[in-house]
C-alpha cells in the first residue's frame, strides 16, 4: 500500500473523521476563497479559515496514535515487504500534511490583506507555524500511542525531548504562534521533533528484535491488578462489571500521583530549559486540569456498551442500568476531578502562589467534565449527524470556556463572560441527561456495542 494511501486512510479512518475533515475543508476553502479573491478580509472570514483547519486537524491529532497502533499491530503489516516502514512513513506524512495545512491557514490569515497582522514575512509565519504544529501533533501522537499500551522505556526516552518541545512550543501566550519568536526556540522545537521521530522510528522498527519473550501482559495493568480487591458484595460487583475494578479511592490516588508527577516532571524540565518556575505551573493548569476533567468524563463512554453485561447478570432493567451508570460516572468523576483539584491547590499554595487566579479555569473544567460524561452516556446510537453536532457544541463550550478562563487570569474584565458559558454548560447537562435517560430505555446493544478497549487496561475486552 502506498504511503499517500496510508496517509489518506489515517485521515479518513472513522466516519466521524471523514465528516470533520469534509466540514473543515469546506469552511477553510470558503474562507480562503473569500480572502484570496479579495471579496472580504474581515475577522469573521479569517476565523472561518482557522476554524475549518482546526476541525480537520483535531481528529487525527487526538486519535493518531491509536489509529497507528491499530494499523501497525496487524501481523500482515509485519509480514509485508517494508510494511511497518511504510505505515510509519504514512503516519509521518499525515502529520506533515496537517502541519502544512495549519501553516498555510495561519500565513493566509495573518499575511493577507489589511488588518492586524505581524510585521514579519509570510514565509517566516508559515515556517514557525509548521514547526509548532508538527511538534505539537507529534507530542499528541506519541502520547496517544503510548496510552494504548504503556511502554515506560519509550516514554523515558521521548518524554524529555517532547517536554522541551512543548514548553518552548505551546507557551500559553496570547500571541501564539509567535512568528517573531527567536530562531533558537524554533530550531530547538524542530530538533526535538526530529529526534522524537528518529527515536520512535528506531524503536518501532526494531521492536520485534528487542522483544526477548512473548508478552502476555502489560506492565501497568499487571501492577494495578495487584491492588484490585473483589469482595463478592453485590453493589460492588455490579459496579466492577460495569465500570472496571479500580475503585474510587484508587482512581483518586492514581490521579493525584499522576498530577504531582507530571508537575514535578515539568518543573525539572523547565528548570533544565532555563525558563521560569511559574511557566511550568501554568502549563500544569493549562493542559492537565482541563484534560483531567475531560478524560474523567470521557471514561464514561464505555458504560453504555458495557451495561449489556448486566442486562441478564444484574437483573436490572434498562432504566436501572442508566441510574447505575450515572452513579458510577459521578463517583469516578468526583474521584479523579477531586484529586486533580487537590493537586492543583497544593501546587498553587506551596509553589506557584497565583492567589486564586486559576479558580475560574477549575470551575469551567469541572462543568466541561460533567457535560462530557453526560454526552458519553447520551451516545448510544453510534455517530448519527445530530450527535456529531452535539459533540461539536460540547467541544466548543469546553475549548471556548477554557480559553476564556485562561485569559481571565490576565484580564479580569473577561470574568463576567464566563457566566453565560457556565449557564450554557448547565443547560446542556440537563438536556443531555434527559435525552440519555430516554435513549437508555430503548438501548439496542446490536448498535451500541462494547468498545474495543485496549488489551489489558482496566476495561473489559
Amino acid at each position, binding site marked *: 500500500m502506498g504511503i499517500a494511501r496510508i496517509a489518506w486512510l489515517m485521515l479518513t479512518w472513522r466516519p466521524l473523521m471523514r465528516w470533520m475533515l469534509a466540514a473543515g475543508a469546506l469552511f477553510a476553502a470558503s474562507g480562503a476563497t473569500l480572502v484570496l479573491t479579495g471579496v472580504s478580509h474581515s475577522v469573521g472570514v479569517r476565523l472561518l479559515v482557522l476554524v475549518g483547519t482546526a476541525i480537520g486537524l483535531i481528529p487525527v491529532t487526538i486519535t493518531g496514535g491509536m489509529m497507528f497502533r491499530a494499523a501497525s499491530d496487524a501481523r500482515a503489516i509485519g509480514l509485508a515487504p517494508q510494511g511497518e516502514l511504510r505505515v510509519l512513513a504514512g503516519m509521518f506524512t499525515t502529520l506533515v500534511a496537517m502541519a502544512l495545512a495549519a501553516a498555510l491557514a495561519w500565513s493566509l490569515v495573518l499575511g493577507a490583506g489589511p488588518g492586524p497582522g505581524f510585521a514579519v514575512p509570510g514565509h517566516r509565519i508559515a515556517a514557525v507555524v509548521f514547526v509548532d504544529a508538527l511538534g505539537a501533533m507529534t507530542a499528541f501522537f506519541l502520547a496517544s500511542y503510548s496510552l494504548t499500551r504503556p511502554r515506560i522505556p519509550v516514554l523515558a526516552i521521548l518524554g524529555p525531548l517532547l517536554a522541551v518541545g512543548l514548553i518552548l512550543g505551546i507557551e500559553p501566550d496570547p500571541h501564539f504562534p509567535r512568528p517573531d519568536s527567536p530562531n533558537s526556540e524554533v530550531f530547538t522545537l524542530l530538533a526535538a521533533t526530529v529526534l522524537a521521530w528518529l527515536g520512535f522510528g528506531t524503536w518501532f522498527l526494531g521492536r520485534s528484535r528487542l522483544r526477548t519473550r512473548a508478552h502476555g501482559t502489560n506492565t501497568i495493568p499487571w501492577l494495578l491488578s495487584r491492588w484490585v480487591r473483589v*469482595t463478592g458484595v453485590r453493589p460492588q*460487583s455490579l459496579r466492577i462489571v460495569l465500570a472496571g475494578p479500580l475503585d474510587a479511592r484508587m482512581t483518586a490516588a492514581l490521579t493525584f500521583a499522576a498530577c504531582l508527577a507530571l508537575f514535578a516532571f515539568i518543573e525539572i524540565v523547565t528548570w533544565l530549559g532555563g525558563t521560569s518556575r511559574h511557566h511550568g505551573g501554568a502549563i500544569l493548569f493549562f493542559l492537565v486540569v482541563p484534560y483531567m476533567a475531560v478524560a474523567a468524563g470521557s471514561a464514561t463512554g464505555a458504560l453504555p456498551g458495557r451495561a449489556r453485561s448486566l442486562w441478564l447478570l444484574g437483573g436490572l432493567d434498562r432504566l436501572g442500568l442508566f441510574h447505575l451508570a450515572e452513579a458510577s460516572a459521578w463517583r469516578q468523576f468526583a474521584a479523579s476531578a477531586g484529586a486533580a483539584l487537590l493537586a492543583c491547590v497544593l501546587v498553587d499554595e506551596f509553589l506557584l502562589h497565583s492567589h486564586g487566579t486559576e479558580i475560574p479555569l477549575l470551575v469551567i473544567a469541572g462543568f466541561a467534565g460533567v457535560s462530557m460524561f453526560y454526552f458519553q452516556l447520551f451516545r448510544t446510537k453510534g455517530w448519527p449527524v445530530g450527535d456529531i453536532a452535539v459533540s461539536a457544541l460540547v467541544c466548543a463550550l469546553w475549548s471556548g470556556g477554557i480559553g476564556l478562563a485562561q485569559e481571565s487570569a490576565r484580564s479580569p474584565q473577561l470574568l463576567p463572560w464566563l457566566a453565560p458559558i457556565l449557564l450554557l454548560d448547565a443547560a446542556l447537562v440537563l438536556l443531555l441527561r434527559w435525552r440519555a435517560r430516554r435513549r437508555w430505555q430503548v438501548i439496542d446493544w446490536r448498535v451500541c456495542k462494547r468498545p474495543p478497549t485496549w488489551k489489558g487496561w482496566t476495561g473489559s475486552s
Partner: protein
Amino acid sequence: MSQPVLSARGLGKVIKGRTILKDVHVEEHRGSVIGVIGRNGAGKTTLLDILLGFSPPTSGESRLFGHDSLALPATVKGRIGFVPQQDELIPMITGAQHLALHSSLHPRWNGDLVARLARTWEVPLDRPVQILSVGERQKLSSLLALGHDPELLVLDEPAASLDPLARRRFLQELLEISSDRTRTILFSTHIVSDLERVADRIWILREGALAWSGDLDTLKESVVRLQVRARRALPAGLALPHALRQQVRETWASALVSQWSPGEVQDLRDSLDAEIEVQSLGLEDLFVELHA
C-alpha cells in the same frame, strides 16, 4: 403442552437499512438442545441477541418463559445463562475473582458444579484474565454462565476457539447437563459435527430467514437428494414435487426434496420412465445443499 421456554413470531431486524433478520418464527420447549447454524452474517448472533432482549426487533416479538424479551423480570433473568461470542471478562482480575463477582450477583450458586467443571475443563482460576488464552477465556465464560444452574443456557459459538479435545469435553459436559431434560440449551455454531453430536433440534438460518427449524432426525429423514436418470429427455419446465432446489439437464436431474414419500417417488418413476435414486445426506451435505 407446557408453556414454551422461548418463542418468536415474525421477528425482523433492520440495522442502518440492512435487513439482518426477516420473519423468523420459532417455538421451543423445555429440555431441547437447539443448534443454530448458518453462514457468516446469516443473523445467528442477532437472533440470539433479540431473543435475550439485548436488541429490540424491528418487527415481531420474542418471549422467554412467557415474558417479553425486552422486559424480562429479574426472576426470569436469573433462570438464563449466556455465553457471548466475544467474552465480556474483565482483564485485570482472575478467574476466581470472576467467580466471586458472579456468585454475588445470583441468589443461588452451584459451587460444587463450578469446581467440578473448572477441574474437568482445566480452567486456570488463579491467573488474571489478560494472560489467559482465548480458549481458556471461553471456558471461563462458560463456567460463569453455568454457575447458577440456568434453566435456559444460550451459547453463541461456545466452542469456536477450543482445541478438539477441549471441545469434545465441553460438549460432553453440555450433554450431561441437558440429560435430565429440565434444561434447554440454545447454541450457535459453525461446526456441523458439534451440532450433530449434541443437538436434537436445529434452526438453519439463510440470509436472515429461517430455512429450516425442527428435529435434527426429521431433517435428515425428510430431506433427501433425488438423482433422476430418464431413458428419454425430461420435459422442459419439469418441477419435481417438494423440491427445495433442482437441476435438470436433458435426461438427468438432481433435486433436494423435503417431505418426500416412497409412494411419490414410485409415481415419479412411472411418470418420467426413469431410474430414481434416493440419497440420504449428512448434516454437512444438507447445509451445503441448502446454501448452494
